[in-house]
C-alpha cells in the first residue's frame, strides 16, 4: 500500500487535486517539481527527433498515400479531386500489372536464393583463419559500397550483345557461336538483370552471416568434434540452428529490399523489352515519369500491402518453427 502511494506521488499526472499532493511534505513537492522538469527536458530532447520523423517521414508518407485516391497528375494539377479507388481499378485492369507482379516474384526469389547460398559459402570460407583474410574480406565487401544504378550501367554494357565483355568471353571459350542478344530478349533480359543483382547482393549476405557466425561459441564445435560429428553435421546441427534467427531476419530484410530495389533494372533495361523486365518499383517510376503520381502512389500502396502480408506470414512461420523446436 505504501508503495502505491509513493507511485502516485511520483507520477506527474497526479498533481492538482490529488489527495497526496494536498497533504504532501515539502520534500515530496520538490521531488514532484523535479520530475516535471525532467519530463519537459526529456520532451525537449526528443522533440527534434519527433519533429524530424514527423516532417520528413510520416508527413510525406501520408501525403503521398492520399494521392493514390486522387486524380493527381502533374500534367494538369488544376483538378486533383478525389477519385476513390479509380487508380487501383486502372492498375488491376492493366494486363501489364500481372506481368509485373510475376516478374517481381521471379526477381525476388531468383535473386535471393543464389545470394543466400553463395553469401553463406563465402561467410563460411571467411570465418576460417588464413593469410590476408582481411584483404579478402575488404575485396568481397567492396561491391556493397557502389551505387546500384552504377552497377546497372556497368552490367548494361557488359551484357551488350556486340560490344560487351560477357559475349566476348563466352565466344572465346567456345560456348557460343553467335552473340546472345541478352537485353533484347525478354527471357535472357530477366536472367541478365538477376545475375547483376546476385553479384551485387551476395556481399550483404556474406557480411550478415559472417557476423552471425562469429557469435557461435567455439566450445560447441569442440563438443561436436569430440562427439564425432562431421563438418556437414556440425553445419546443420550446430551452426545453422544457432544463427537461425539472424538468417531469418536477414532473408526477410533482403526480400523487402530486393522487392523495393529498382536501380539495376532501371539502368539496364528500363523495364524493357516491352515491359518484360518491369518489377513493381520500376513500373512505379515509369508511371511517375508520365506525371501520374496518383497511379504511382497506388502502386506504392500495393507494394506496401504485399510486403506487410508477406512479412506477417514469414514472421509467423518463424515463430511457429521456434515453438516446434523448443
Amino acid at each position, binding site marked *: 500500500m505504501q508503495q502505491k502511494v509513493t507511485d502516485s506521488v511520483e507520477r506527474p499526472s497526479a498533481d492538482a487535486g490529488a489527495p497526496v499532493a494536498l497533504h504532501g511534505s515539502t520534500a515530496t513537492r520538490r521531488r514532484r517539481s523535479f520530475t516535471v522538469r525532467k519530463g519537459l527536458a526529456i520532451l525537449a530532447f526528443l522533440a527534434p527527433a519527433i519533429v524530424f520523423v514527423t516532417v520528413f517521414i510520416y508527413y510525406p508518407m501520408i501525403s503521398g498515400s492520399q494521392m493514390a485516391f486522387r486524380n493527381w497528375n502533374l500534367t494538369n494539377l488544376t483538378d486533383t479531386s478525389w477519385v476513390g479507388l479509380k487508380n487501383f481499378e486502372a492498375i488491376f485492369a492493366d494486363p501489364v500489372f500481372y506481368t509485373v507482379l510475376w516478374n517481381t516474384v521471379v526477381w525476388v526469389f531468383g535473386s535471393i536464393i543464389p545470394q543466400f547460398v553463395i553469401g553463406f559459402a563465402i561467410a563460411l570460407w571467411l570465418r576460417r583463419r588464413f593469410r590476408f583474410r582481411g584483404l579478402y574480406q575488404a575485396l568481397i565487401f567492396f561491391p556493397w559500397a557502389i551505387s546500384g544504378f552504377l552497377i546497372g550501367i556497368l552490367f548494361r554494357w557488359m551484357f551488350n550483345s556486340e560490344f560487351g565483355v560477357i559475349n566476348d568471353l563466352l565466344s572465346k571459350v567456345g560456348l557460343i557461336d553467335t552473340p546472345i542478344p541478352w537485353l533484347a530478349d525478354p527471357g535472357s533480359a530477366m536472367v541478365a538483370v538477376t545475375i547483376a543483382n546476385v553479384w551485387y547482393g551476395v556481399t550483404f549476405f556474406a557480411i550478415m552471416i559472417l557476423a552471425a557466425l562469429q557469435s557461435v561459441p567455439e566450445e560447441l564445435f569442440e563438443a561436436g568434434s569430440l562427439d564425432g560429428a562431421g563438418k556437414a553435421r556440425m553445419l546443420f546441427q550446430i551452426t545453422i540452428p544457432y544463427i537461425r534467427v539472424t538468417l531469418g531476419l536477414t532473408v526477410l530484410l533482403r526480400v523487402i529490399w530486393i522487392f523495393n530495389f529498382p536501380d539495376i533494372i532501371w539502368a539496364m533495361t528500363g523495364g524493357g523489352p516491352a515491359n518484360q523486365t518491369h518489377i513493381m518499383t520500376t513500373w512505379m517510376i515509369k508511371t511517375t*515519369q508520365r506525371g501520374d503520381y496518383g497511379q504511382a502512389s497506388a502502386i506504392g500502396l500495393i507494394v506496401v500491402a504485399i510486403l506487410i502480408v508477406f512479412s506477417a506470414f514469414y514472421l509467423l512461420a518463424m515463430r511457429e518453427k521456434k515453438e516446434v523446436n523448443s
Partner: protein
Amino acid sequence: MKRGIVAHKKLFTGLGLGLAAALALTGCTGSSDDGTVTLQMVESLTNPARTDVIKGLISDFEAENPDIKVELISPPTDQADQKIQQMLQSGSGVDVLEVRDITVGPFATNGWLHNMSDELADWSGWENLTDNAAKYAKNADGETFYVPYGFYGLSLFYRTDLVEEAGFDGPPASWDDLLEQASAIQDPGKNQFGYAFRGGTNGNSNVVVAIEAYLADQIDEDNAFKLTDGSTIFAAPEARDALKTYFSIFEEASPPSSVAWGYPEMVEAFSNGSTAFLLQDPEVIATVGQSEAIGADQWNTAPLLTGPTGKAIQPMATAGWGTAEASEHKEEAAKLIAFLSEGEASTTFAEQNSLVPILKDAAESEFYKTGAWASYVTMNENPDTYITAVQPRDSAWWTEWIQKSDSELQQVLIGQMTQEELLESWDAYWVEKWKNE
C-alpha cells in the same frame, strides 16, 4: 525556478537561431539592400560542358547588368524536369528556367509559367529570329511562355568509306535507299552492321519520322500526326508501307540487340566504327568528332531520308528559356532571356551545343556551312523537300504516348504484336485523345 527560466531562454534562443538559419536559407532569392537583384536560373538538359558555356554567358550578362546577379542551378539531366516541377510547384527558388517543347504544355496548364508577351513586347530581337524560332516563341494564342535557344533536327550520319566499299556513289537519300545500302554493308560475322536501330527509349521517334516521310504530301504541318483530311497518319495505307521498310531495316541491316538500344548504344555503335548509318540530332556531331575509331574523312552527314514522294518531314524539337509565374523579378528575368536570345550570346550557345540556330544571321555563318553541318544547309535551302512540321510534343499526354509507343514498338520487334496491330493501336490512341480535347 531561475534555472528553469535560463533553460527556457536557451531553448528559445536555439529555436530562434534555427528559424533564422532556415529563413536565411529559403530566402536566398530576391533583392539585397544595395538594390542588386539575384535571379535563380535552372537548366534541364545539363551536361558539364554546356553548364560552362551558360556560366560564361551569365558572366557576360552580369558585366553588362551590374545590378543583376544570376545563380545557376544544374540538376542532373535525368531528374532535372522533376526537380524543376517541384520548384515551380513550391512557388519559390526559380526565376528563369529551361522550358522544353515537351514540358511547356503541362507547365503552362498548371499556371507555373509566366506569359512574357508584355516584357518582350518591345524587344528588338524578334526581327532577327528565324521563322521557326518566331513560330515556337508564341503559342496559338500569341502567348510567349519561352523563347527557343536552338533546334534539334535529324540528319543521317553515314560512313563514307563503307558506302564507297559497298559500291554506292553516295549516301542514301530515301528510306528504301537506306535499306538497300545498310543491308549490303551488314556483316555480323565481322561485327559490322548497317544501321544503328533505335528499339529502346524513344524508339518511337524514328518510326514516326519514317511514316511521315511516306505521307509528306498529305501532312498537316501544324500537327505532324495528322493528315490534311483530319485523320491520323497511322490510319493511312502508306503508313503500312513505311513500317514494312522500317522493320526490314531492323531485320536485315541492324544488330538483333538493337531492340534495347537507346541513345548511348546508337551513338557508341557509330562512334566505335561498327555501324554504317545513324539517324540523330546535330549534337552528335561533336561526339563523333572525338571518336578515335573513325577519322574525320570516314564519316559525314546527309539530309533526312525521304519517302516515295521524294520529300521528308523534319520534326523539329526545341527548348528555350522561360520565366516562372511565381518569380518576383519578371522584368530582370525577361532581360536575361532577351540577352541569351540575341547576338553573340545566342550564336555562341547554339554553336557550342551543336544546335540549329534561332538567329537569321547565325544560320548564314561559315560554321553552319562546312563539314557535317552542310546537310543542314541543304535542308534549310530546300524547304519544299525537307518540310518542317510540328509534332504534338506539347500535349499533356506526350510522355504517356512515348511510353506506350516505345513499349508497343518493342512488342513488334520481339514478335508479340503485328505491324497492323501497332498502327491500329496508335491510330485509336490519337483519335481518342483528340476527341476528348
